[in-house]
């Protein structure tokens, strides 16, 4: 699937299937500040939604809640129609949700393979792995290399330290985690904010590639052309509320900006 066609493609879905991820009435306050006031969001199988809004609109709070890093004050989250509770990032992982953070959740001093499997190391088969808890470095490198190959992320070697990689390659490591661990939902917080033009292009292509494999994606970005290019629908947050949901194919940058700023009210 080429990334160019994404903007115009409606996700193929049967309307009767429930959303893969469904959040209802999510609210969160920090002291007297109401960060989120009853926000709803649906994400369907194979869909990319752009989550946009001005600074302070509540995007970060919402994705922290969806990735298990924050507990909401009120609201319900469902996966495949089944209510779940996300008390920690581990709960999110267990429910198939991976988050790619803006500030790159990688350990610079460790190599690519180790970063990929950090916290979920592959262990040796048999007693050595079960009781001795010995990790299987070679297997991790081999599997990591296969995944990088299939995702077209070009690096010299899986033994390369992450601090020797470019920003785009580092994002690649973080994105590859979601593929390696068979996630169905990836939340990406400003994945290209810190990247140059060429690296941004690489990451955009990567997003298209994992979406083509059926991964549903929530993309948070300030880059409107990018959101319009990649997403199927756009969810706009304003002052902690959902200001509107736009079909990407039926909107343009100007309208999205009007909704973000409150110049246009839709529902």
């Amino acid at each position, binding site marked *: 699937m080429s990334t160019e066609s994404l903007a115009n493609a409606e996700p193929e879905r049967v309307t009767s299937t429930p959303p893969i991820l469904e959040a209802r009435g999510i609210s969160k306050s920090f002291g007297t500040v109401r960060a989120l006031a009853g926000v709803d969001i649906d994400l369907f199988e194979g869909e990319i939604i752009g989550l946009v809004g001005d600074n302070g609109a509540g995007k970060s709070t919402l994705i922290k809640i969806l990735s298990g890093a924050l507990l909401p004050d009120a609201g319900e989250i469902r996966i495949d129609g089944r209510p779940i509770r996300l008390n920690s990032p581990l709960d999110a992982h267990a429910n198939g949700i991976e988050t790619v953070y803006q500030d790159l959740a990688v350990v610079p001093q460790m190599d690519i393979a180790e970063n990929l499997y950090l916290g979920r190391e592959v262990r040796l088969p048999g007693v050595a792995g079960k009781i001795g*808890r010995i990790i299987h470095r070679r297997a991790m490198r081999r599997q990591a290399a296969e995944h990088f190959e299939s995702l077209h992320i070009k690096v010299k070697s899986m033994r390369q330290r992450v601090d020797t990689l470019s920003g785009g390659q580092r994002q690649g490591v973080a994105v590859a985690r979601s593929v390696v661990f068979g996630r169905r939902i990836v939340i990406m917080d400003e994945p290209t904010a810190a990247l140059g033009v060429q690296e941004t292009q690489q990451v955009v292509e990567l997003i298209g590639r994992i979406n083509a494999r059926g991964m549903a994606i929530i993309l948070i970005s300030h880059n409107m052309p990018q959101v319009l290019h990649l997403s199927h629908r756009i969810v706009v947050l304003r002052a902690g509320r959902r200001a509107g949901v736009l079909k990407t194919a039926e909107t343009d940058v100007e309208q999205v900006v009007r909704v973000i700023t409150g110049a246009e009210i839709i529902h």
Partner: protein
Amino acid sequence: MPALVEESVPAAITTTSKPGGRLGGLVGSRHARTVGAHLIAVPWIGVLLGIVIVGLVAQAEAPCGCFFTSTNLLTTAQEFSYVALAALGGAMVIMTKGIDLSVGSSMGLAGFLSADLLAHHTAAVPAVVLGLGVGVLVGIVNGILITRLKMQPFIATLGMLSVVRGVALGWSQGFTLYPPLSFTSLGQGTVLGIPNPFVIMLVIAVLLSLFLRYTPLGRHIYAVGGNEDASRLLGIRTQRVKIFVYAFAGMLAAAGGILLMSFLGSADPGAATGYELDVIAACVIGGVSLFGGEGTLFGVVLGAFLIEEIRDALVLDQVPGYWTTLAIGLVILIAMAIDQGRRRVRRVAQ
């Protein structure tokens, strides 16, 4: 006399820093580049060179010509093992971006506690186990202060340095204890002619190196130091990892303190005062970055050895002992400068 200092100390400077080789390596020939790359990637190579050169200079300068004799080398091996043992734990703490200033006090208290138990007819094994246990306890308290009460590791362990030393001093009322003579066989004995403390330290160093390299928890120690937030988000229980390293550091410090007490045949409540600085120096010289996430225990052992070797060399070369502190201080500064340089070169290389 000062001439000797000038000759032996700068020898360590040129070998451990290798400014020409390192920077030249980046811009020079392909061969020079790989040498430079190795010096950046493998900090202990520089330390090893330093050890060799300090040894050669000491041999040449010592009136007795006795640096490279088995007696001298075995004595040095014996004497650096206590600090090296504590430094293995200290290094794991520093790898998590922490610091443990309480290890010297833990050494003193553990040695004193074990000696007191032995003097009151406790069998050797329980006496040692309880001595190690007090080290673990100190480490757990450090870990809780740092993770639960969110104290800076420097401040928390500085407080514990005083608290733990205070317990030893208050309990002893300043008196030195003497364990039964039979217990000295642990610290003074040898295996195939090699001093026990050195053998014990080396075995633990090898096992711990394998642990750090080949187990999930070992890797998580580096991960927590390299990027704590990322580690937490990836599901690593970072607080547990930290409590573990402080507890382990406390236990290894206690092991060093008990061996020292056994070797000396006495337990002075002020024993090992200031050793925390030697421990940190050994780590830094051995290439454990204070910025966390990096370092090898092999480097730490070499770092601890280099410190003791410089002390020994200066004694054999008949340099007044007052200069030793200066020499070690300079080596620490050089090691820090190399660590900074290494980070800068890495950034440039990106």
